[in-house]
């Protein structure tokens, strides 16, 4: 459906655009509501020990938010791309490449911590930006470009690592990484808050700020909502599109660094399927795959919800197959809700 037709059709269907629509509000915060439901379910179905609810134990909450920190960081970046109606399939492979780079640079090249991190993050952002340039320059579907990016990143990771796991040992001297780097696998504040989760929180706060309170954020929504209109009103559409892929590249590199620090190694085989978990978190979070709308809080809640669901199923010793079925059902539900909202607003599709 072209834009003109959409506009004609939608005009009479929205007599009062600013009216309070509880249904739309519910959908906008579907993942927050979903998270609350999963949490309530978790409390009800949680196994108990000596009267205390295991699901709510501080240790367990820490386990949940640690487990989702890497995919959460990626999902935050993915939200930008999906709001522009794009997609990035390369993120999991790029995480793997970044973990291999981090491990190699610190153990083989002997660089210090700061130069290593800067280099890896710049590489990630550059990789993403390159995908954005190829996609906009040659007018290729991001699906294809980032699919190629996925293969390329994995291939590079295999070449750099020589198809081997690169273990990181800590200490002072050649072949040893700076001991401070291992803090990524630690828990702070009396062994309660995982550092990986703190990185996720910082990334999410910065991203929320950028998306909601900057001109760039407004451009992202505008490009996704109606690219032609955005172009006609003088927005740097191409630059915005390249930037969002640079952002996913950057967050994948951050996640890769966190991965290397948490697990003390770099591996060309890790991060498989992370792109799908991240996309699932974004969609459950209420961001539309058609672009133009979405929320960062939704994405974060979506990511936490998937982690909480997996956790409560494992605490109850329910097998992995059911976990996949439940996740599948939740994604469909989230997509159906979005489609209903679009129809109510007369946007069709």
């Amino acid at each position, binding site marked *: 459906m072209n834009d003109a037709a959409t506009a004609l059709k939608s005009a009479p269907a929205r007599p009062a655009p600013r009216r309070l629509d509880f249904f739309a509000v519910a959908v906008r915060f579907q993942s927050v509501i979903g998270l609350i439901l999963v949490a309530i379910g978790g409390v009800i179905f949680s196994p108990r020990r000596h009267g205390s609810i*295991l699901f709510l134990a501080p240790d367990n909450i820490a386990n949940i938010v640690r487990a989702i920190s890497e995919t959460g960081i990626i999902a935050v970046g993915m939200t930008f791309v999906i709001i522009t109606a794009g997609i990035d399939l390369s993120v999991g492979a790029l995480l793997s490449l970044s973990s291999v780079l981090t491990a190699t640079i610190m153990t083989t090249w002997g660089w210090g911590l700061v130069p290593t991190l800067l280099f890896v993050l710049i590489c990630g952002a550059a990789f993403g930006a390159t995908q954005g340039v190829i996609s906009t320059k040659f007018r290729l579907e991001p699906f294809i470009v980032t699919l190629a990016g996925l293969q390329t990143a994995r291939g590079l990771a295999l070449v750099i690592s020589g*198809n081997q796991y690169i273990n990181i040992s800590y200490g002072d001297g050649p072949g040893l990484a700076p001991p401070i780097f291992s803090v990524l696998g630690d828990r702070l504040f009396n062994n309660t808050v995982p550092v990986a989760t703190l990185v996720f929180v910082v990334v999410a706060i910065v991203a929320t700020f950028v998306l909601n309170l900057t001109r760039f954020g407004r451009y992202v929504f505008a490009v996704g909502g109606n690219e032609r209109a955005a172009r006609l009103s003088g927005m740097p559409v191409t630059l915005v599109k390249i930037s969002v892929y640079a952002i996913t590249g950057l967050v994948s590199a951050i996640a890769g660094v966190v991965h290397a620090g948490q697990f*003390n190694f770099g*591996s060309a*085989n890790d991060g*498989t399927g992370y792109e799908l978990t991240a996309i699932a978190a974004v969609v459950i979070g209420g961001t539309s795959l058609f672009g133009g709308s979405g929320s960062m809080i939704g994405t974060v809640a979506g990511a936490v919800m998937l982690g909480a669901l997996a956790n409560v199923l*494992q605490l109850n010793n329910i097998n992995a197959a059911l976990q996949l079925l439940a996740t599948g059902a939740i994604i469909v539900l989230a997509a159906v809700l979005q489609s209903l909202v679009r129809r109510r607003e007369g946007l069709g599709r």
Partner: protein
Amino acid sequence: MRRLEIRSKLWPFLALSAGAAALTAGAAQAAPLVKECGKNGQYVIGFSQANNAEPYRQHVNDELTAAAKKVPQFTLQIADGAGNVNTQTSQMDNFVTQKVDLILISPFEASPLTPAVARAMKAGIPVIELDRKTVGEPGKDYTAFIGGDNFKIAEEAGKYVAGKLLPDGGEVAVLEGLPSSTPAVERLNGFKAGVKDNPKIEVVAEQAADWLPDKAQTAFAAMLQAHPNIKAVYASNDMMAAGARLAAKGAGKVDQVKILGTDGLPGPAGGIRAVAEGEWAATFTYPTGGPEAIEMAKAILLDCAEQVPTVVTVPTTAITPDNAKQLMGN
């Protein structure tokens, strides 16, 4: 650092006689390994499996489940790490939160899972590692390691060829696993050491087929072209033995070439069936360690053992036409 290495069939008896065990190790800790133990309790054992998708690992799960079912006090929980160190770490953490009574783990990778194992040990939960180890010292950084010995398994296969299969000697070929992997190297060297018993045997060809049946078929077909008199082929896993069989069939040499596998998995695609139906000469089990792990769990949780052997090497079983049909019945 004390380090007890005992072959599996012996150690339960040793562990039971706690006094004898204390003598051997100087009895550094005279307290049981766990706080709550005894025959009247109910215990949850968590097993963190590296990746359920591999047939061998499914076989481990099955044997472990069967062994645990025989102990009414035990409940076994299996968590699938799905080949992902992050998932497996979070599952280990969940076991600690659940305060399971004992953890078994086959780590997907050694060093990434080491911190998770350390957290469980710190929480006072014994950790028995199956088939693969994390970094550190058994008995200190984790409670014990139970697994097979790839070199010895392949050596048994080599001795079987040298003694029983080809006493008059002849040309022999080897299909190796993924070249960079430790088990591939150990199995190759073990077999070559085993056939040395018979000087009339000559290893004329060895090729890597990466554990895969299609690559094994291609490689062995080429070997048969180059060496038409090959009398036996040792495949480092069952999948490659299946591939070698296809190549021998293609060359019209199924009667001439004796095929040996490794792993001895049950089921329609496994080596036990192939030997029972006469397709292969033999296969050598890579033991799961499942029954041995449950035995050790019994010693720790039911018998309040003060210590257990820290390294248990489980011997292989040769599956030959003599016992294959009977094993298939099980």
